[in-house]
């Protein structure tokens, strides 16, 4: 029992945060389910309810029920079409936890939005209609979830009321799903029979499914671990911004992307390879002894070594992969198809480089997961791609660290985010089809004397910051 507001706030302050994604087809009742979670957790205010009742009468699709879906379809155009067209974020909390829902649409042309909504999710709820079971869209959603590396999936079998809460039907859907999902290697899958419209097994266990031994959906969301997506083992600190308030302080600020760092740890700065020790870990309140993901901190070093934005601090005996060639799964997000002749900007952690798509190895059919050869990718297509970058990057496979294994590709002309990628690993330059684009400048051959070396090194450094690496031969 909570006795006072102070006590309530004290407890609220200690809650953690779970981010989850919801995916389903147009009529699976996804918006109804989210509306139910918000409604039952008493987040819906009375004035929103008034407007809702008004709207439900005018354009609702739920008959006499309140149309919970109308709560969520925010934008005018969407309300007119009766479908959700983009990712919408929703917030609610229970006595134990805070939640952020990324509500994403289910229909084909919007794979892009589901990928967007799912990138920060700790868990995904995939809805199926109990009457139709596992369908093509279920497979597609699950594949995308596995591609994003979401480790916890809930298969929510909705509309159980329409099939008389039949255990046999539920079991069959679960069997189908588990058989299909096995090769994808998602570690944690929970299947729950639901009726979002009536509220069965949403917040509390339903009497209408006595055969179901698990917990309700909300019970599950409240108890799953949230830190499974973080890497606490390999210290990775991409430097974001150098703090220099005065002569006596030089702090490298950034967000912990992996591992734990302690005051006194030996660290290597990449790409320079120079080594020093952590002198202090600084936050606004003062110094701390250690830091872990996803904290935003600043690190000062014992020695004056050259470190700037885009560099990475790591432990000397635990280096990330490094190089200018790697393979990745790429999701094309732009209406303009991939142009392999183009030089893109690639942003990974705090590092931006020029990048070139060497070749598309294959594309994946998101419905059947079959591979087929491809020259390029179009909107919503997914494929394995080889990359060459203009400067050296420091990365890990996305599987072992999302923060250092993810990147976006930016069109240099339109500045759109054209594609997003998840690194698989490093490749050798000999496996590339195209030519290496590293520019080599031989100063002797050009007759440039030693007195200009300092200026040339400055230019080399600035070019690198702007994403182009050149090799100088002196």
């Amino acid at each position: 029992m909570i006795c006072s507001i102070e006590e309530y706030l004290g407890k609220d302050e200690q809650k953690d945060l779970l981010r989850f994604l919801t995916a389903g087809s147009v009529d699976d009742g996804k918006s109804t389910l989210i509306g139910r979670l918000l409604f039952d957790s008493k987040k819906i205010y009375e004035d929103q309810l008034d407007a809702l009742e008004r709207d439900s009468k005018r354009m609702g699709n739920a008959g006499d029920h309140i149309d919970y879906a109308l709560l969520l379809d925010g934008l005018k155009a969407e309300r007119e079409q009766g479908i959700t067209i983009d990712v919408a974020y929703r917030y609610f909390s229970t006595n134990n936890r805070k939640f952020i829902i990324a509500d994403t649409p289910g229909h084909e042309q919007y794979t892009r939005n589901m990928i967007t909504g799912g990138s920060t999710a700790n868990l995904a709820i995939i809805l199926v209609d109990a009457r139709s079971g596992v369908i093509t869209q279920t497979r597609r959603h699950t594949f995308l979830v596995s591609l994003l590396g979401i480790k916890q999936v809930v298969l929510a079998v909705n509309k159980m009321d329409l099939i008389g809460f039949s255990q046999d039907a539920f079991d069959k859907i679960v069997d189908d799903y588990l058989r299909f999902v096995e090769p994808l290697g998602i570690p944690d899958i929970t299947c729950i029979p639901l009726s979002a419209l009536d509220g069965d097994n949403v917040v509390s266990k339903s009497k209408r499914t006595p055969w179901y031994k698990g917990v309700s959906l909300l019970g599950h969301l409240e108890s799953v671990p949230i830190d499974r997506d973080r890497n606490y083992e390999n210290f990775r600190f991409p430097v974001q911004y150098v703090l220099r308030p005065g002569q006596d302080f030089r702090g490298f600020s950034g967000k912990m992307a992996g591992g734990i760092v302690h005051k006194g740890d030996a660290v290597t700065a990449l790409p320079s390879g120079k080594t020093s020790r952590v002198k202090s870990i600084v936050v606004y309140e003062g110094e701390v002894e250690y830091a872990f993901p996803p904290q935003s901190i600043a690190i000062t070093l014992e020695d004056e070594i050259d470190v700037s934005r885009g560099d990475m601090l790591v432990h000397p005996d635990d280096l990330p992969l490094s190089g200018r060639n790697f393979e990745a799964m790429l999701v094309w997000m732009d209406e303009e198809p991939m142009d392999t002749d183009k030089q893109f900007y690639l942003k990974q952690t705090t590092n931006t480089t020029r990048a070139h798509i060497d070749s598309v190895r294959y594309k994946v059919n998101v419905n059947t997961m079959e591979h087929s050869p491809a020259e390029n990718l179009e909107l919503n297509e997914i494929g394995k791609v080889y990359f060459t970058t203009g400067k050296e990057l420091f990365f890990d496979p996305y599987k072992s660290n999302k923060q250092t294994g993810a990147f976006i590709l930016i069109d240099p002309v339109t500045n759109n985010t054209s594609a997003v990628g998840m690194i698989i690993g490093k490749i050798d330059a000999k496996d590339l089809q195209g030519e290496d684009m590293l520019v080599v400048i031989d100063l002797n051959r050009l007759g440039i004397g030693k007195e200009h070396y300092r200026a040339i090194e400055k230019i080399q450094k600035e070019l690198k910051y702007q994403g182009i690496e050149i090799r100088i031969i002196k």
Partner: protein
Amino acid sequence: MLKYMDTSHNLQFSLTHLRELEAESIHIIREVAAEFENPVMLYSIGKDSSVMVRLAEKAFAPGKAPFPLMHIDSKWKFREMVEFRDSYAKKAGWRLIVESNIEAYKAGVGPFTHGSKVHTDLMKTKALLDALDKHKFDAAFGGARRDEEKSRAKERIFSFRDKFHQWDPKHQRPELWDIYNARIHKGESIRVFPLSNWTELDVWQYIRIEKIPIVPLYFAKERPIVNIDGNLIMADDHRMPEELREKARMMKVRFRTLGCYPLTGAVKSEAETIEQIVEEMMTTTQSERTTRVIDFDQEGSMEQKKREGYF
């Protein structure tokens, strides 16, 4: 194998939701400072702005933030807001830019004479757009939260604006992980919302645990109030028409949001502390924006204003 983990000291490696949100916001703010040439933090003097400003102070400690605050003064803000603005900026050492639509002000534009729509268009939206152009800011932080209003729930954290400051909800850049696309052409800009994932309760909690100063108008006090079409409007100065001012009577009220005083309704309240405000909020049945008069104009009106460049 956690070779660098000091197991003997039983260290904690989890964050509360507030500390996680804080870390996310600081990362966003630093990213803007690193990627843009001329960013600005829009400061509305409200509680959300106060939290955002504190996060910016945290992001660059022990140094100062490498961008100024800018307040768009519609000339009809509560007097206490302006006093608070000036004293806070001075005390905390912020460079503060204040911009207004002086032309419209001199022409006598105000909500009582011109209505809320004309006033908002000229004194807020136009004043903001002109100020952004005048200073050539390429990124502007705003304190908006996604839980405030339906159209905001779908907006990106880095929200692209074209040369005319317009937002196109159908062509938003995909935004994944914590990798933000900051690339723009000359004349275009990005609005950045570091508090996107905070809720109203999170903001109050943070103000409480961080002891962040806020404008006293948020707390209940006896104030001179006129009931105008069901909205409790404070008679803050002599510019309120006399026939309205005469009807003012003292009521114990507070404000859930702050803006132009003739357009911001008060709520009857006894809440004099943050704890009492939260208690009231949890038991109240009205969501935050209902005390803002401008929302009533037309259905989807906030989305319309956002497309035009208003926050």
